């Protein structure tokens, strides 16, 4: 028995196993959990989180952190909505408005990320502070642009990305798989791992740390922009405070999956499992009609449990 438990705990996809067990439990306990409609709800809720967490995972690989992710989501949400909105949008009613808006969103996200990367790689400032200030600057900017108002009346061609779950799913899967391949199969990914593990060694081995870091943050910014597209389209609202409370969920999902905050150990597949677990908890407890404080507490408890099992795993592995 203990052996089987150990096997499971050691399997590297502990979070996945946990999610599975949890889902089984909830299929029995929570009315309406095991329905197709609910599966759709769960997937729908997972997608944007998965996309932005993929970017965060890549950043964490280099022992960095991107606190500006949610601010970038908000900024790009505002930028995109501002271009396409029927209420005085920059390109309102223009046939190419949606593609141009998406392009601009990706561009803005990547540029902000690149700005982070430049401060960190060239000026050698600590990622925590750089992205914290970027968060403030960018949030301020999006609120200033909109004077704190949300932007509505987005055209159907834009909302398509929120309503059509198939498209959203495809986007998220492509982003996550690309992220994973980048980390595990490419030269850049290998370099990022070395940068995260030991920057001094990376430097003497001829790895171009600066380029790697620039790329990392730009990718993270771009992921945030993609997530923003889905979120904005789903909510039919471009808002300067879009997702502002979800920063800890993003980092939480990554870390629960098993990615280390100290660099050198990161994996998008793990992150996907973390995203799944967090989303399952949220969804099922809602269905159980727990009050939102109980949901919060339960979420905290489950995260703690996952972390504890992870610790156990590491300890057993060493024997």
């Amino acid at each position, binding site marked *: 028995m203990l052996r089987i438990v150990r096997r499971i705990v050691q399997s590297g996809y502990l979070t996945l196993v946990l999610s599975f067990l949890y889902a089984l439990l909830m299929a029995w306990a929570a009315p309406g959990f095991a329905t197709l409609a609910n599966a759709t709800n769960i997937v729908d809720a997972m997608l944007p989180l998965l996309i932005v967490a993929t970017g965060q995972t890549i950043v964490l690989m280099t022992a960095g952190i991107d606190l500006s992710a949610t601010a970038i989501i908000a900024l790009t949400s505002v930028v995109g909505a501002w271009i396409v909105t029927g209420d005085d949008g920059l390109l309102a009613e223009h046939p190419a408005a949606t593609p141009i808006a998406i392009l601009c969103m990706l561009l803005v996200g990547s540029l902000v990320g690149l700005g982070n990367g430049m401060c960190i790689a060239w000026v050698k400032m600590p990622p925590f502070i750089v992205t914290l200030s970027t968060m403030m600057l960018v949030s301020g900017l999006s609120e200033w642009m909109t004077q704190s108002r949300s932007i509505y009346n987005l055209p159907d061609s834009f909302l398509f990305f929120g309503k059509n779950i198939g498209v959203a799913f495809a986007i998220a899967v492509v982003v996550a798989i690309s992220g994973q391949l980048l980390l595990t199969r490419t*030269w850049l990914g290998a370099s990022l791992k070395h940068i995260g593990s030991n920057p001094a060694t990376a430097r003497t081995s001829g790895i171009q740390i600066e380029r790697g870091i620039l790329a990392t943050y730009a990718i993270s910014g771009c992921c945030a922009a993609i997530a923003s597209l889905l979120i904005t389209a789903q909510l039919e609202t471009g808002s300067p405070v879009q997702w502002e409370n979800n920063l800890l969920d993003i980092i939480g999902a990554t870390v629960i999956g098993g990615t280390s905050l100290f660099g050198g150990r990161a994996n998008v597949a793990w992150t996907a499992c973390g995203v799944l677990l967090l989303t399952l908890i949220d969804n099922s407890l809602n269905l159980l009609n727990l009050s939102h404080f109980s949901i919060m507490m339960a979420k905290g408890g489950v995260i703690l449990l996952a972390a504890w099992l992870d610790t156990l795993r590491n300890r057993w592995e060493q024997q």
Partner: protein
Amino acid sequence: MNQPLLRLRDIGKSFFGNPVLQNISFEMQAGQTIGLVGENGAGKSTLMNILGGVLAPDSGDMELFGNTYCPDSPRASARAGIAFIHQELNLFPNLSVAENLFLSHFPKKLAWINRSELHKRSQELLARVGLDISPGTKVQSLSAGQRQLVEIAKALGEEARLIILDEPTTSLTDHEVRKLFRLLRELQSQQVSMIYISHALGDVKELCDRILVLRDGQVVADKMAADLQIPDMIRLMVGRQLDRLFPESKSQPGESIVLEANRISQPGVVHEISFQLRAGEVLGLAGLMGSGRTELARILFGLEPMAEGELRLLGEPVQRLSVSQRINKGMAMLTESRRVDGLCTQDSALANLTMVVAKKFTSRLGWIRRRSLHSSASQMAEAVRLNLAEGMNQAVCTLSGGNQQKVVLGKWLLNKPKLLILDEPTRGIDVGAKFEIYALIDQLACEGAGILVISSEIDELMGICDRILVMSQGELKDELQSREFNRERILKSALHADAIWEGDV
């Protein structure tokens, strides 16, 4: 018969199911000094870690002063009177010497640290090991040798009755080693017991009363030092006869110049260094601790700035190139301390071996061709005789020191360098592995690479080099051709003019 100080019975330990120590039993008397020798990975450090409470044994038991002894933490072993000077230095570089000396037992009044007392006692300890530095100095500004002495001072401060020294001389120059030995002899005369681990078999024989030879985790010999000759030790360690310490050199310096340095200067570090290195040549760089050899190597490799001078690799100027560009042009450098900037210790051997070369196995889209990369890494692992119990995915931090060094060397060799700079390449490596590394160096030279070797072991330089440069205070002081090799002359040139030479070499 008086009671033994320490008795070990049937100690066994395995990692991930691989036995590292099996049935180790021995006892030692108070006041004795035991030498512990064995190949890299024989289990010396593991055994001492068990004794020092860092690791717990899987089986067996220990007795200290007749009482059962099973330390659950390094703290417990320190309490029991054992001081442990680790193979990988255990100091906090960002703290002062004084703070490091009294890490776990600050002189204190209630919870407060007694600063003046701390200062005073630190000075006493530093004086005992002959270090002339202020206790307030940050450890990071000390050289490796000075740090080693600080470690020893720390052990002295703990009033230990048994001191374990795991390869204490790896980063010391001859002069420092002599100084250390004087100190150890003094301790011996005060009836302090010691366990001394080293790959310098001569030192072991000279210092120890008794010698224990470890092979594959078992004690294969336990004899009085007088009864054990060095060749026998080597035979016992490696399990076969080893006739010579250095391989026969097959390489010949060629005509073409690989590296040409012209009046390289960096204020406060090096001054007007000029030399040439030919293809197929092994060039040694000798000097005392702090003479600037490491700094010079780092400047050559582009890791540190250089104010003036000209540097040509195969005729092309390279002084403006970045490290990665120099690597692409065929430069390679094994750095002085592998843990700091040679390895990513938590990553696998595979990841470390392929760190430099992976770029060449990358398709145009940035895709790594993993299979061919893996197979050439495996070939390299075999070529450098890497001993990996768990295959290529074993984390490097679980390898013995010698194997770690082979990983770093393999990493560079995979890139087929034209110029290889080696800074203390055999630090902490056993005789067998040293021989292999020398052979690898020679083979690389045969293939036409130029090699610059920095070493503090003069015998080593004389054994493998075609030519030796001597450095002192950031300047080149002397140059010896292989027929002129002479220990005395090298040492003399290495000394700075104003240094006080205590002359006991």
